[in-house]
C-alpha cells in the first residue's frame, strides 16, 4: 500500500465568521502529483496554507498530518516542506545563488556542500549558473524568476513540494512548457507535488489526482479521467470542461434504464446510479458525446431531443453546433472538423435537427449543489 505523506482528517478552518475550509478529509500519497482545483474563494489556497503551516486548523477542527504525525500547531519552519509562491517571493536583496542557498543555510547544511547543491538545483530547472548565479531577481524575466523560485524549493530535496498557482503569471507558451517540466520533475525526483490552481486544463494535464473544491468543501476527488468523465455534481460538470444538462423525473424502469421525463423531452439514463421512482434527475452530457442528426433518423437505442440549429461555430479542431431545444435551452454539440472546404457540415443555422446520445454516455448527477 502506498504511503500517505499528507492526511487531512475532517479539517475545519474559520476566519472570523468566514468558514474557509469545512470538514475536509483526504490523503495524498508519496510521489503523487496532487492538484487542488477550484474557483477563487473556494478554499484551495487555505487548504495549501494549512499543509504549509501558515494557517492552523480551528480548535477541535480536525487533524492535519504530515508523514503520519499530527502537525496542527507546528510552525512552517518546523515542517521541512518547500513551496513555490504565486508571486515567486524571491528575496530582492539577494542574488539568484543566495536566494537558492537561503533554505540550505537555514536548515544547517554544511557550508562546503552549499555551492554544489545550488549548482545542481540550477541545472535541474535549466538555469545557466555562469550567467544567472550573480544576478538579482530584478534583473530576470518572469520565466527566469519562476525557475529560480522552483530551484530555491527543489534544492532542499523536499519530500513534499507545495505549488501555489506557480504558472499564473507566465504567458501561454511558457506555461505549457513549464507544465511538462514540472510533471517530469515530479516523476524523476519522486517528490510529492501538491499543486493549487484555478485552471482546469492545467490540472487535467498534470495531475495524478485532482481534488475539486467548491464553497470550502471537496466537491469531488479523483483521477483526471474520473473527474472529467464522471463528474458527481453539476458544479464539477460545469467547472471542468463544458457540459450540457438535461433534467426531469424518473417515471419508470425498463431493463437497465430509467425513463426520465422532463419539460424539454424524455430520455433514458443508466439504472445503476441510485435513481428511484419519481425522483428528480439531472444528467450531464459532454458536447463531444452528443451528436446532431435529422429528427427522423435517430440511431436506434439513443436518446434524442429535437430542436433548431441556432448557430455553427468554427473552432479549428472542432465545430460547435448550438441547438435550441424546447424549454428555452441551448445545448452545445462538438463535432470533429473533417474539413469545411472539402466536406462541409450538413447543418446550418435554422435547420431542424435533433441532438442524440447513448444512455450510457450521460452522467447522473447529485442534486443540491449548484
Amino acid at each position, binding site marked *: 500500500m502506498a504511503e500517505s505523506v499528507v492526511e487531512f482528517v475532517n479539517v475545519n478552518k474559520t476566519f472570523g465568521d468566514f468558514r474557509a475550509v469545512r470538514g475536509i478529509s483526504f490523503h495524498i500519497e508519496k510521489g503523487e502529483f496532487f492538484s487542488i482545483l477550484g474557483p477563487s474563494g473556494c478554499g484551495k489556497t487555505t487548504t495549501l496554507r494549512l499543509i*504549509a503551516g501558515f494557517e492552523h486548523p480551528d480548535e477541535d477542527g480536525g487533524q492535519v498530518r504530515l508523514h503520519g504525525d499530527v502537525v496542527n500547531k507546528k510552525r512552517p519552519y518546523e515542517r521541512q516542506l*518547500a513551496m513555490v509562491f504565486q508571486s515567486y517571493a524571491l528575496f530582492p536583496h*539577494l542574488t539568484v545563488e543566495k536566494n537558492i542557498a*537561503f533554505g540550505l543555510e537555514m*536548515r544547517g547544511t554544511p557550508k562546503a556542500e552549499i555551492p554544489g547543491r545550488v549548482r545542481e538545483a540550477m541545472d535541474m530547472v535549466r538555469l545557466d549558473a555562469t550567467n544567472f548565479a550573480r544576478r*538579482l531577481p530584478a534583473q530576470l524575466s518572469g520565466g527566469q524568476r519562476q525557475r529560480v523560485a522552483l530551484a530555491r524549493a527543489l534544492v532542499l530535496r523536499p519530500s513534499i513540494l*507545495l505549488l501555489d498557482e506557480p504558472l499564473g503569471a507566465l504567458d501561454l507558451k511558457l506555461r505549457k512548457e513549464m507544465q511538462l517540466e514540472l510533471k517530469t520533475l515530479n516523476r524523476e525526483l519522486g517528490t510529492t507535488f501538491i499543486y493549487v490552481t484555478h485552471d482546469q486544463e492545467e490540472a487535467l494535464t498534470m495531475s495524478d489526482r485532482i481534488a475539486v473544491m467548491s464553497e470550502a468543501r471537496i466537491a469531488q476527488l479523483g483521477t483526471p479521467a474520473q473527474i472529467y468523465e464522471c463528474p458527481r455534481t453539476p458544479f464539477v460538470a460545469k467547472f471542468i470542461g463544458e457540459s450540457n444538462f438535461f433534467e426531469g423525473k424518473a417515471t419508470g424502469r425498463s431493463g437497465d434504464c430509467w425513463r426520465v421525463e422532463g419539460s424539454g423531452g424524455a430520455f433514458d439514463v443508466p439504472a445503476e446510479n441510485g435513481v428511484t421512482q419519481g425522483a428528480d434527475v439531472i444528467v450531464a452530457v459532454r458536447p463531444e458525446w452528443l451528436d446532431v442528426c435529422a429528427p427522423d433518423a435517430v440511431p436506434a437505442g439513443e436518446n434524442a431531443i429535437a430542436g433548431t440549429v441556432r448557430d455553427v461555430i468554427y473552432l479549428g479542431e472542432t465545430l460547435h453546433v448550438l441547438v435550441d431545444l424546447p424549454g428555452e435551452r441551448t445545448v452545445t454539440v462538438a463535432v470533429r472538423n473533417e474539413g469545411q472546404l472539402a466536406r462541409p457540415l450538413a447543418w446550418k443555422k435554422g435547420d431542424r435537427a435533433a441532438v442524440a446520445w447513448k444512455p450510457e454516455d450521460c452522467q447522473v448527477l447529485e442534486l443540491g449543489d449548484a
Partner: protein
Amino acid sequence: MSGGPSVRQRVLGWFHERPTATAWALLAPGGLFLLVFFVAPLVIMFGYSFMERGLYGGVEAGFTLEHYAAFFQPLYLTILLRTVVMAVSTTLICLALGYPVAYTIARAGRFKNALLFLVILPFWTSFLVRTFAMIFLMRDSGLINSLLVKAGLVEEGITMLYTPFAVMAGLVYGFLPFMILPIYSSLEKLDLTLLEAAEILGAPPRARFFRVVLPLSMPGVVAGSLLVFIPALGSFLSSDLLGGAKQILVGNLIQNQFTSARNWPFGSAASFVMMVLVVIAVGIYLRVRDADEAREA
C-alpha cells in the same frame, strides 16, 4: 476669422520644440530662490570666515586663516568630540526606540494612519515650547520627580535637568519622528510573502528579521540615521535649555559667536568645519553601507 496661431499657441509651440529650455524654465523659480537664500549666504559666510573680526560684530576686510587654526585647539576639539558623541548616541537611541515603533505601525492595519498621526503630532507645536515642557517634566520638583517621590521609589527628587541626560532626552525626543517615518515607509513596502517564503525555507523568527526584514529596511534606516544625525550635530536648543549651557555643543559655540561673542569670522569658520565634517561622515557612512550591500550580494 482666424489669422495664424495665437500668442499662447506660439509660446507653447516654442517650448514644445525645446525640451532643455522647458526644463530650465521650470527649474528657474526654485533655483532662483535657492540661489538667493541658500547659495549666496553660504558664499558670504565662506568669505567671512577668512576676514578679520569686527570690534562690534560684523567683519573687517583682510585675509587670515587664524579662525580655522583657532578651531583646532584642544578647547574646541573637546566640544567637537562631545558633539559627535552626543549626535551618534542620539542616532543610536532613536534607532533603537524608533525601529520597533515603525515596525508596529507598518503592521497596524487600520490603525496605521491614526498612529502615524500621533508620530507627527508634536510638529504642531514649536520645538521651543516642547523643550520648555520638558523642563517642567524633568526639574527637581517636576512631574517625574514628584511621581517618583509619591510612589516611594526615591527619597527626594533626582537631578535630571541641566545634566547630559536631559540634553540627550531632549535630542532623542525632538528627532525620533525623523527616524520613525523613513523606517516606517520602507517597512510598509515590505512584501509579507517574503517572510512566508523565508519561514517555509526554515527560517525561525530571528533569522527572518536579520536576514530579510532588516536588510530590506536598510534604506529607511540609512535615511532616518542621516535625518537624525545631521541636525543633532548642529543642534543647540536642547543643550542650551535642558543642559543649562553647562556643556556646550558646537551648535551653541557657533550661535554664541554670532551673538554674545561677536566673532562672526570664527563662527563662520566653525560652521564650515562642521559642514565639511558632516559631508565626510555621511560619505563614509554611505560608502560602508554600499560595501556591506556589495558583500551581501
